[in-house]
């Protein structure tokens, strides 16, 4: 047997492999060193990515927290003519405007978006595929374009800036985001559940209402809250259409104030006191946005736990 093997001509592949193994063994120490260095660099890059986050949060607390008082959060801003002598007043109406605009935009967008999501998850016709592509592209479009849209179709016909125009812009912004998230959530429901419902003789509307929507609820709620959070921080479309307001106003047909817009306006203000207060406004805005994003995490985690 061994004779037979030694008689065989040398196998070029085996020889080559031996050379490679020898070379690999010789370089393993150097390669390991380089590799570890590279891996450390990857982790370092990740830590570098967190520096801006840390810096932003630090800045918000360092410069913003001192302006946050109950008075600041609950009163109206100072008259522009009196700012030089007096305190700059509060942001109560901006908080109110933000909540109204974001809330009403959500009330308009959520039902539409859920039905679009349901349609996209149930249908795979050519029209549905086309709509799906459009919805996905819409989620990536710059929000300022919706400001132009709301300006042309709400501000121009009404001949006035209004909270309503902001609501229109934000709701069109929110629909694709919620529709996409809820489509994924609806698709994530096991098809056996749907088929079981249909096999029991339920209509597909009944199956959607009784099976699909409840089962997909955690994902849907996450998507809704995240899109509310995202819309709340949007400045660009709001900037073009809602105007400005120094008073309380519950009527979206009038001009309104809002936190992101106020942050933007204060940051470029001629009064140093307003420029400094921009951080207080920003902190209030970030707190509200974070509340929604963390809320979405909490709700979905909680609902998932309850399922088990």
């Amino acid at each position, binding site marked *: 047997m061994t004779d037979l093997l030694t008689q065989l001509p040398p196998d070029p592949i085996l020889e080559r492999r031996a050379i490679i193994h020898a070379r690999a063994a010789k370089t393993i120490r150097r390669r390991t060193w380089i590799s570890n260095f590279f*891996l450390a660099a*990857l982790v370092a890059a990740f830590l570098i990515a967190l520096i801006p986050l840390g810096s*932003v949060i630090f800045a918000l607390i360092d410069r913003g927290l001192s302006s946050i008082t109950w008075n600041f959060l609950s009163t109206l801003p100072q008259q522009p003519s009196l700012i030089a002598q007096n305190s700059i007043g509060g942001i109560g109406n901006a908080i109110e405007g933000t909540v109204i605009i974001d809330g009403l935009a959500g009330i308009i967008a959520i039902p539409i978006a859920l039905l679009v999501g349901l*349609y996209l998850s149930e249908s795979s016709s050519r029209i549905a595929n086309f709509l799906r592509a459009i919805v996905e592209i819409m989620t*990536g479009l710059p929000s300022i374009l919706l400001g132009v849209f709301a300006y042309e179709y709400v501000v121009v016909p009404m001949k006035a800036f209004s909270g309503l125009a902001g609501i229109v812009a934000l709701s069109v912004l929110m*629909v694709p985001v919620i529709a996409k998230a809820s489509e994924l959530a609806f698709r994530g429901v096991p098809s056996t559940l749907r088929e079981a419902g249909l096999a029991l003789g339920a209509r597909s509307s009944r199956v959607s209402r009784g099976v699909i929507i409840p089962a997909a609820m955690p994902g849907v709620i996450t998507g809704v809250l995240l899109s509310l959070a995202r819309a709340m921080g949007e400045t660009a479309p709001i900037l073009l259409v809602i105007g400005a307001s120094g008073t309380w106003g519950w009527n979206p047909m009038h001009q309104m104030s809002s936190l992101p817009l106020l942050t933007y306006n204060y940051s470029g203000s001629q009064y140093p006191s307003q420029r400094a207060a921009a951080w207080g406004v920003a902190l209030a805005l970030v707190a509200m946005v974070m509340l929604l994003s963390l809320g979405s995490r909490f709700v979905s985690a909680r609902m998932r736990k309850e399922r088990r």
Partner: protein
Amino acid sequence: MKENTDTDTQSSGSEVAERIRRSATSDRPYQFLLRGTALFFGAVIVVFVWSVVHTAWPAISTFGFGLVTGSSWVAGTGPYGALPLLTDTVLTTLIALVFAVPIGLASALALLFLIPQKIRSTASSLIELLAAVPSVVYGLWGLWYLVPWFTKTLQPFLAGVTGGRWPFNGPQEGFSVLLAGLVLSIMILPTIVAISRDVISVVPRDLIEGGLSLGATRGQVFLRVVLPSARTGILGAIALGAGRALGETIAVAMVIGSNPQIPHSLFTSGATLASTIATQFGEASGSTGSALAALALMLMVITASVNAGARVLTKRARMPR
């Protein structure tokens, strides 16, 4: 209940068929509702696109192609040439990608393979937190922290090291395309990390283990196996990030200096398509308003095509091989 089942079993085939037909017909309102809503939203999108085209039309018919190729943009009086805005938009996006792509890919790899399991979800939610901060807050932060840092430290340093040669020449005022690009890179980082992590996570386990078993180090496997086999999806992630950077408005408007000019160095102030719309729309009337809508139309065409490309790439990447 028992009786029901009995009658059901006794009912003839045609009766069952009839019942199924009836239940299908009575479900029609539901189908109408779904299709109607989808159709309605499609119509809203059409109206949205039309509103931009319609508002831009006077400017397009007056100035024609000069809107794109004209090299000077003066609000209020004209001329309305978007070339400086287009170059600034593309330049800031490229700067953003230069910073965000390596750091984003490294973070994605670190999150997937290197960071201990215990803190992995915390680490990835920190990156997601970066996406939750509103754009205007990044602008404010850039204005208060990065502008002074640029004027006092970074710009003198870069000019000193390079001897003030291109592209580090010019004014050292902080507000610059470089600063805008840097702020953008922070803002698009979460997008790049999230998408590239998704596409890297579907790289088949066999490929990675095959590489390791051949004696490659982990670093070599990342560079020669993981990244190449996820490259389509990574390109998609980069394109999505670029799409965000191209359209980002408020933060850029706050730090770029709002000065429409063709950049001659990284330190020159500028203005992007989106930032110009944001800063000038308020005072715009007549021809300026229409010219700004033409900018919006350019922005829409550019970002829609970039996003469509990104969609094709990421979709292909997620397909099983």
